[in-house]
């Protein structure tokens, strides 16, 4: 079995740093930060940990139905989605991921655009 990006960068210890960094960036972003206003911290961290683990081939299972469910009521538009991708790309690169792997993660997230954007 080929090694996943999750394993390649050292598993949870590396991914956890990316998650926290992305969490900060998302909350501080003027474009998408408001989506996270008043969201319970535990839930948000839980979601982002699982989601990023899922995108990088870690031990999380996210069905598209579940993704649709958690995003449905938020009214996320393409612009928001693009901003989120940009922030995630920054987080991944800043934590030493190669351009190729960042591209792979972004591709993976792009494939879920239609379940996240309404």
């Amino acid at each position, binding site marked *: 079995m080929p090694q996943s990006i999750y394993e390649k960068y050292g598993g*949870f210890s590396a991914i*956890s740093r990316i*998650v*926290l960094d992305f*969490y900060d960036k998302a*909350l*501080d972003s003027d474009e998408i*930060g*408001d989506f*996270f*206003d*008043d969201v319970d*911290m*535990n839930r948000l*961290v*839980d979601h982002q*940990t*699982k989601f990023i*683990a899922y995108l990088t081939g*870690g*031990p*999380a*299972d996210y069905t598209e139905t579940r993704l649709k469910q958690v995003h449905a009521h938020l009214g996320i538009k393409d612009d928001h989605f693009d901003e989120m991708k940009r922030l995630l790309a920054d987080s991944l690169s800043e934590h030493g991921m190669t351009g190729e792997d960042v591209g792979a993660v972004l591709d993976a997230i792009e494939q879920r655009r239609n379940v996240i954007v309404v």
Partner: protein
Amino acid sequence: MLIEAISEQLLKAMGVGVALVNAGDLKIRFTNPTFCEWFGQSHNGSSIGDVFESLNVEALRETLSKTGQYTLETRVKKKRRILIIELAFREAVHEGGDIIVVECQNISRVREMESMLDSYAHMVERKTRDLELEKEQVEKLLLNIMPRSVYEEFKTFGVVTPQLYEPVSVLMLDFVGFTSMAASADPTVTVGELNDIFSSFDRIAEQFGCERIKTLGDAYLAVSGLPHPNIDHARAVTNSAVRFARYLQRRNQSHQHQWQCRIGLASGAVVGSVVGVQKYVYDVFGPAVNLATRLQVLSEPMEITVHGDMAAELADEFQLIDGGKQDVRGFGKQQIYKISI
């Protein structure tokens, strides 16, 4: 610079929020910039109880007098983020009077890490459960192709040492005209029926202490006396063989396809082993297997053929019909018997 001025500058530069409060009336005397950033400006002169609504002043006084320290957790919203701040109240003396030092630590990141660890633990636990289930499935599949004791050896050592089993009895069954039946009828139906029949054979074999080793096309091979010795091995395979034939007779009465079998039984030695590395099967080899195969060929449809040595073991329980001496390839002239169904 006076020590006092240095202390004040230090307090102002700290990332920890600090407030100094009169021990008597709980009025705030000093707050550093970090404190103000979190809890607002110009507290001087107001009571600490007004700043932290969740603060129980009586409890604070009581605990401070007993232990000298009191802690409290509070939340403040800064922009979109809810900060979790831990407040520690400690008694101190300043300019000859009793004061309380309130030290405020931002523990949001700690909490975020905790919740991330929870999240990770859940993911891993779930994955572990899934893996356990998968492992059970694989185990079940492997137990279908090899005896449990062989599987245990395979699991522990990664290899199986070929082992000689003697004496054992082998049952070899083959269907009459299966090839033409499979060609003439819908093959999926034929194979479906074959599956039914073999599943029934498995149950019968197990009931009589035999182990099915393999099926190959329409051939069915079972052994008794392996992996655990069975003194009744000859009777075990014969009982199974008779039940197989009776089962088919009964089944044929109510089904369109007529299934007719030939069975050969032989006692002797076999070697059992796992064969192959990637695509492994558990198989048996040896004279008993070969003889059973040859005797099966000598059977007419719905007949069970057995050789002389084995027949001696069965005479008490089964009705044997003398089949005379027959030339069995590789085994010379053999006295054979047919077993009445």
